[in-house]
């Protein structure tokens, strides 16, 4: 340290070392920087004590505060659940058919249902609930309902599912296969009659005869369908499995029928109600009992009461 001196061109003191004529200027770090650096060290010590820090063999040290990212997530989720508590309680208490009388609750239920729909339903019905004609998943936006489109009917369908083996009789039906029952001309005739019901073909007397004998029991004499057994309307413009003659023939010979899981077994009742509200809100929702005109509809109000607790 004996060789400390002031370097003339810069006016800075040297540190006093010399290597082969090379000296080093002593330009210490700014004090604020140094103090910040010391503070970060102190902070780091505190942090290591308080939070998980040192990696061990299968986990890191826990830290005095017991904080963990999973714990923090769980806390936030609980807080979010708690924030929704009163809404969920209200929704659990209300009868689903009365949901429309409470617009605010309905609105929140629709919003919650939209989220639940994306998770549980969009795989088949599509994220916009437009269904799929090729795969036979119904469009939920339109005004054509196989099993009824009022709140109670929608709720029942979601809750118990469609054509579930262990379910009661409500959402059960089978269309028999007519493979071999008709010859080619008869098949053409009945297909023409079915198309004529919606005005898409000329009438066929022979077809009407066959239709009356074989189909009218379920699909109705005028093709108006029967929601009690999920028999589709044939006199409208919506064809779940295609509206060409070939599509209809295929369906007569080898009928395909949709099935849906009973969501009441997988989701909590509140979520099912929210889904009901959402599907109802897509634009096709019907007034209770209003338009179930020509077919006998035994279920709407009566069972709505015991829907709440599946």
């Amino acid at each position, binding site marked *: 340290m004996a060789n400390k001196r002031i370097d003339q061109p810069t006016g800075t003191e040297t540190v006093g070392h010399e290597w082969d004529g090379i*000296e080093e200027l002593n330009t210490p770090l700014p004090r604020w920087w140094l103090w910040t650096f010391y503070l970060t060290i102190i902070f780091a010590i505190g942090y290591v004590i308080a939070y998980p820090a040192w990696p061990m063999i299968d986990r890191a040290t826990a830290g005095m505060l017991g904080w963990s990212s999973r714990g923090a997530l769980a806390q936030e989720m609980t807080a979010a659940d708690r924030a929704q508590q009163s809404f969920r309680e209200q929704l659990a208490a209300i009868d689903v058919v009365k949901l429309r009388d409470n617009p605010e609750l309905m609105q929140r239920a629709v919003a919650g249902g939209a989220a639940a729909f994306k998770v549980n339903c969009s795989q088949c019905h599509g994220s*916009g609930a437009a269904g799929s004609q090729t795969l036979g998943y119904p469009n939920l936006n339109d005004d054509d309902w196989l099993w009824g489109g009022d709140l109670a009917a929608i709720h029942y369908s979601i809750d118990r599912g469609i054509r579930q083996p262990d379910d009661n009789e409500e959402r059960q039906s089978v269309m028999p296969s007519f493979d071999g029952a008709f010859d080619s001309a008869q098949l053409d005739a009945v297909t023409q009659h079915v198309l004529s019901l919606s005005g898409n073909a000329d009438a066929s007397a022979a077809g009407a005869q066959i239709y009356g004998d074989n189909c009218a029991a379920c699909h109705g004499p005028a093709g108006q369908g029967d929601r009690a057994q999920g028999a589709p*309307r044939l006199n409208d*413009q*919506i064809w779940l499995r295609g509206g060409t003659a070939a599509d209809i023939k295929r369906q007569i010979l080898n009928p395909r029928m949709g099935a849906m899981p009973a969501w009441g077994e997988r989701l909590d009742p509140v979520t099912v109600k929210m889904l009901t509200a959402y599907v109802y809100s897509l634009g096709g929702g019907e007034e209770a009992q209003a338009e179930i005109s020509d077919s006998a509809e035994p279920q709407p109000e009566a069972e709505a009461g015991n829907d709440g607790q599946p």
Partner: protein
Amino acid sequence: MGNPDTPDDAKRDWAVTVEDGIAKSNEPVSSAVADPAATTRRHEPHEPPRETLPEKLYEARKSIHNKRIDGPFRRFKWFVMLVTLGIYYVTPWLRWERGPYAPDQAVLVDLANRRFYMFGIEIWPHEFYFVAGLLIMAGIGLFVITSAVGRAWCGYACPQTVWTDLFQHIDRFVDGDRNARIRLENAPWTWGKVFRRGFKWSIYLAIGFVTGGAWILYFADAPTLFRDFFALEAAPVAYATVAILTLTTVTLGGFMREQVCIYMCPWPRIQTAMMDEKSLMVTYKDWRGEPRGSVKKAAKNPGQFGDCIDCTQCVQVCPTGIDIREGPQIGCITCALCIDACDKVMKDIGRPRGLIDYATLEDCEREAAGEAPKPAWRYLLRPRTMVYFTIWAGIGAALLFALGVRTHTEMTVAPDRNPPFMLMSDGSIRNSFTLKIRNMESRPRDMEIALEGLEGGVMWTDAIGRDEAAATQTVTVAADQVRTIRAYVMAPHDAKSQDFAFTVTSLDEQRESDHVETRFDAPETP
């Protein structure tokens, strides 16, 4: 740069001169080329001459104890201080009747509900350009002021100036005038001094608290917040804001003062660029004042001395502690207190006033040459100020126009993309839209939504059932709210994809309306 006052340039001449007398290039050459022996020569340690050490770049603050002065400019400063502080403290308490659906505070920045109220004007977030316009006007307003009357903003109206002035009055009130304050500052820390300082600083704190306290009243209903604040029921952000503003007020106004103007504020630098030889500024008329000499000396040697008697009153009253006689400088905020001081002295010794006065550089030259100065209004009305003023007034007029023609009814339309359309059982085609209707009046209003240019189209909404489908629907939008509506638009089965429009009309005497073009999607028919 690190060594600005090197006494002798030759010492700093890094160019090496070759000593053989042939080539005396002054270009910098590598010392190894110029003097090969130098690279191997040992460097002998020696102490450098003292004067070549770099000077300190940091200058400690010199405390300023400005003397009390009275005069027209001081009175004007009092007046401006009264008005500005009055506006600041009183405004939140003004009431303005807006009916049952809106707050009754005249000026309110309602961050929670995203509304800005200013007397009869209500601004929504999407109209923030009004606020931007006001800020631009404030900026250009500073240009106008600066080019016309120099740093008048700095000298009178700037909050830093106003609060510094206030704190300096507190100093004077507690510790006495300049000489007493200097004495006290140099005195040792006795109990008396501790008590005095403590007393003064608590007044500082109180002023800071009131300043921060008034600020938060602009953001909530003032009487409610006032009560809640002292009942310890206000939001934490209110307390934090008050704490921060108390701290900044005390620090900036109580302790940093002129340092803010000289070192922190960008505005003096910008102003310096905007001032020209025709801008008014506070000037010491050196051609009249120099050489300085006392009244006695001047009496003994008539004609030898100027008017300045070197009494340094101008320096003593200066709130930023400068000597105006050194010429225009960045520390001068043109508060004109030195004019008051000098005028008073000139009056006492019977010389004409205005040795220090507002003057333009051009006037100074003219006056120094013995000509008559131009009247002040000639400087105000010149192209530069006119251009600034025209721009300023133009923006103001445009804002007023926009405010006058803005409608309080607006709508946005978002068509559903998934699915873009769907068939109904009778073959009709349905599209869904999300409408947002804005009612910017502070009363609920009925609005009529209509389809325009969609042949045979009908619509219903999430609240109005399909059985009431029609080409127009009436909805009620709550006061000061946006209502979101799901609209289902249905057209007959033969409808093609086409453009159409929604219109919304308010069903009151104003009949305000909005018109939004959108598209109806239909399946492609083969």
